[in-house]
């Protein structure tokens, strides 16, 4: 329509659909960001992949090409067990957060007006607080001088503080669920929000019971949100470092802590690189499998753009 009014077609780049081309040249617009990401995002990763085949000695890390590091990652009981334990903890955390979050997400999707705005905002606020702090808060709750011990002593249930509340796998679960549960709540909520109320109305009019409406309409339609939440929580949990370090003690350490110690304590960069590459490989395999149902770019937008 606008084209007919245009008296200088040569100056203007028309698109087949009648619109005009967006301003700027894609090459120049993309270059700064792409160069940054290639240089500081991809190149360091490539370097790490290369270094995972090197060998570290007490004299430093020297270029080599050996599979020794990977052999050690897989063969050594310690590292293999840590990997399986971490996968198990991440899996359990994911399952727990689904069950904890779903009812809340469902309730939020049914609220209206100011009430909804308030409660949804309250789900957001903790996102805006550092996870280091959100892991730390459990120390003065579970510790020897913590809230629970103090309360139990005041009530006369126990005489001396109990120690087993902290520094074990249970504390790690609690911490991980606390820190990551909102990464589940939000995508589920967003996918429930998108369900057209007319569908539920129609089902009700046709005589469906609330239970079967939930099972056969709501649940399947919220699947993208659940999936996106699961991927995020799982990925965050398998690479956890802060929570197990603060709350896990010796028995609660996870793969992230094993990796970190190669760089912070042992100075075995080559082996640490191999451990890191292993973790990245697991992440990529998981994303590849889940890409059957949800694209990577949708995971981080809560399945919202689907």
């Amino acid at each position, binding site marked *: 329509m*606008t084209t007919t009014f245009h008296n200088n077609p040569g100056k*203007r780049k028309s698109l087949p659909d009648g619109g005009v*081309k*967006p*301003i700027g040249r894609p090459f120049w*617009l*993309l270059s*700064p*960001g*792409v160069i*940054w*990401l290639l240089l500081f*995002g991809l190149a*360091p*990763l490539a*370097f*790490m992949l290369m*270094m995972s085949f090197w060998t570290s000695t007490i004299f430093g890390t020297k270029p080599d090409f050996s599979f020794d590091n990977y052999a050690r990652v897989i063969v050594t009981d310690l590292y293999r067990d840590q990997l399986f334990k971490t996968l198990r903890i991440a899996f359990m955390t994911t399952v727990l957060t689904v069950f904890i979050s779903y*009812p809340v997400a469902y309730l939020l999707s049914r609220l*209206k*007006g100011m009430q909804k705005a308030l409660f*949804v905002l*309250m789900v*957001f606020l903790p996102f*805006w*607080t*550092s996870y*280091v*702090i*959100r892991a*730390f*808060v459990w*120390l*003065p*709750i579970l510790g020897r*001088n*913590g*809230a629970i011990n*103090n309360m139990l002593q005041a009530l006369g249930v126990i005489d001396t503080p109990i120690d087993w509340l902290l520094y074990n796998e249970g504390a790690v679960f609690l911490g991980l669920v*606390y820190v990551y549960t*909102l*990464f589940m709540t*939000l*995508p589920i909520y*967003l996918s429930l929000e998108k369900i057209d*109320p007319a569908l539920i109305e129609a089902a*009700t009019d046709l005589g469906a019971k*609330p239970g079967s409406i939930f099972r056969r309409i709501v649940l399947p339609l919220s699947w993208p949100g659940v999936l996106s939440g699961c991927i*995020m929580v799982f*990925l965050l949990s398998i*690479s956890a*470092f802060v929570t197990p370090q603060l709350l896990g003690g010796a028995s609660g350490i996870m793969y992230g802590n094993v990796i*970190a110690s190669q*760089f912070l304590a042992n100075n075995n*960069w080559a082996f640490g690189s191999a451990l890191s590459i292993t973790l990245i490989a697991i*992440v990529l395999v998981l994303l590849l499998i889940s890409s059957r149902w949800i694209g990577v*770019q949708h995971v*981080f*937008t*809560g399945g919202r753009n689907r």
Partner: protein
Amino acid sequence: MYLLGEGIVKNMAPKNVNHKKHLSRSSLKTKTQYRGYKTALWIYAGAFYTFLYGPLLMIVLLSFNDSEIVGFPFRGFTVRWYEVVFSSPELLDSLLNSLGVGFLSATIATILALCLAMGFRHDFRGKSIVLYLILVPIIIPGIIGGIVLLIFFGFSGVRSSLWTTVLVAHVNWVLPFAFLTLFPRLHGFDRALEEAAMDLGAKPFQIFFRVVFPIIRPGIIATALFSFSLSFDEFIRTIFVTGYDRTIPVQFWGLIVDELAPQLPAMAVLIIVISIFSSAVGFVFMHRASRSTKT
């Protein structure tokens, strides 16, 4: 995750006006059934929000506890831990470092993300590859995002410090979020305005600065503020490349690991207030942005 913020802004609009009609139409029997579920849900939600906020409120309480121990019993009200926080030069240094890096990395990431988002309005070959490249920093586990820069810069001979390695780590981390927040703003933008400007003979630069930019400005400000808050709270990548400089989460971590210092709760409250404040302001701008562009 911050980009999800947009989701709620959108959903706050009263979109289901015919909801009441729907309720009155459903039979009385289902209504009473619903009520039972609803009560149970509300009780559950109460427990959930207590779980979410209880520990945080407890930290606020403990920040005023007149005791050398981070914990209970509560020995009386004091503000001395806040005095300790504000009179400690290391803490103030790390606070300034965090504010500085947060400001700079938010600026760089927002500019890069804006250019990328402008580029993404075009069709070009390899678009999905570029998108994956943008997503790399959030796909890679956080701990590796720091380590990978440690060895890369370690071998390139770049010394770890605030304005080199930490800045790069933060821009890497923030950039994908900035892009994912900004792109929908530029995508939902009414192209007819741009077209009109073009028809009237405006040059691309003029169109950008006088038409596009003013319209998406709230979205850009929101992106920058969310980016700032992400950078301000960043810990896991920073700890590996921080060298001798400290950001506030790194300083906080040091105080936990070394001695569980008594001023930790006060410091936690300060960190929470700053990052919530910047995100909340960002949120307000995002709300405005979603009104000015129609996504």
